[in-house]
């Protein structure tokens, strides 16, 4: 009987199994077939780092990053700076997982999407919660947030360097 090829993934599978059990989902191999290990690891990291509202509302991850960016970094105590760095990093990771790779958007592309977004209609009256979320995700302010995530990542690299945590990297930064 073949064994799991990479023993270092046993913890990831164990956590994944626990989450499936909690959802009353019978386990099967197909639950693991679509998940690349690196993706599962990033999701676990985001779950660990981000506050509950962000976990419930995916689009809030980017807003969280933007809010963090507005903090005056040099005045943040070191303990809080570590929290700030980790939360910003997780926010950037989650933004990527939600289809926004801020690091690959050029300024011209952002400007173009900004121009298009300005013509985006407001949330329709009577829209469902799900539709509203989708609408907000595409709305102009989101593109502003995307830009701030991009800035947050640059600030984060600087912050991690200041805190000597340059070796702590998640692959999103390199993609």
């Amino acid at each position, binding site marked *: 009987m*073949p064994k799991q090829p990479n023993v270092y993934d046993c913890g990831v599978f164990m956590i994944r199994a626990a989450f499936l059990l909690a959802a009353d989902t019978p*386990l099967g191999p197909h639950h693991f077939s679509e998940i690349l290990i690196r993706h599962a690891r990033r999701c676990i990291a985001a779950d660990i780092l981000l506050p509950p509202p962000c976990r419930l509302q995916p689009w809030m991850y980017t807003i969280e990053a933007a809010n963090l960016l507005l903090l005056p970094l040099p005045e943040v105590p070191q303990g809080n700076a570590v929290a700030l760095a980790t939360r910003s990093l997780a926010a950037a990771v989650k933004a990527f997982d939600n289809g926004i790779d801020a690091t690959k958007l050029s300024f011209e592309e952002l400007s173009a999407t900004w121009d298009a977004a300005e013509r985006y209609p407001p949330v329709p009256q009577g829209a469902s919660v799900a539709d509203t979320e989708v609408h907000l995700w595409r709305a102009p302010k989101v593109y502003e947030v995307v830009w701030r995530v991009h800035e947050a990542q640059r600030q984060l690299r600087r912050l991690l360097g200041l805190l000597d945590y340059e070796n702590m990297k998640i692959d999103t930064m390199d993609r």
Partner: protein
Amino acid sequence: MDDEAEAIFALRQLNAIRSLEPGECLNDDAVELALCRLAEQNQNICVVDSLVMKGFLERRPTNLNRLRARIADKTTLLLPVCHEEHWSLYAYEIEWKMLQYYDSSRRSAPAAVEDAAFRLLAALLKSNTFTLRREIAIINISEVRPPNAP
């Protein structure tokens, strides 16, 4: 949470994140923080700290009073186990008295681990008379993982 506690918690988060990098083995912080998030989302679940299980594995005296208070209204206990640098999971359904074992290496639990889990549950539930039904759930993605997966 005061500043010191917040800083310690943040450092635990960093410690956990480091172990979540590709190729790294997950540490206690990563497992505990992730499963605590799970318990926050599902009020029926109680996660037993892996250090408690480790105490039973090493036959050290362990005070279970606080843990016993936490399981009062729970239906499921999750017991993450780290034995010989390998993570596996026991899930115990209190109502059905059913114990399941999850292991990605497709092995049955080592005798020492199984013995520790039984002793922990007996001590925690203050009962030596319950019947444990044991099922081995096998998790293995080696045959279904995409060919180019890392």
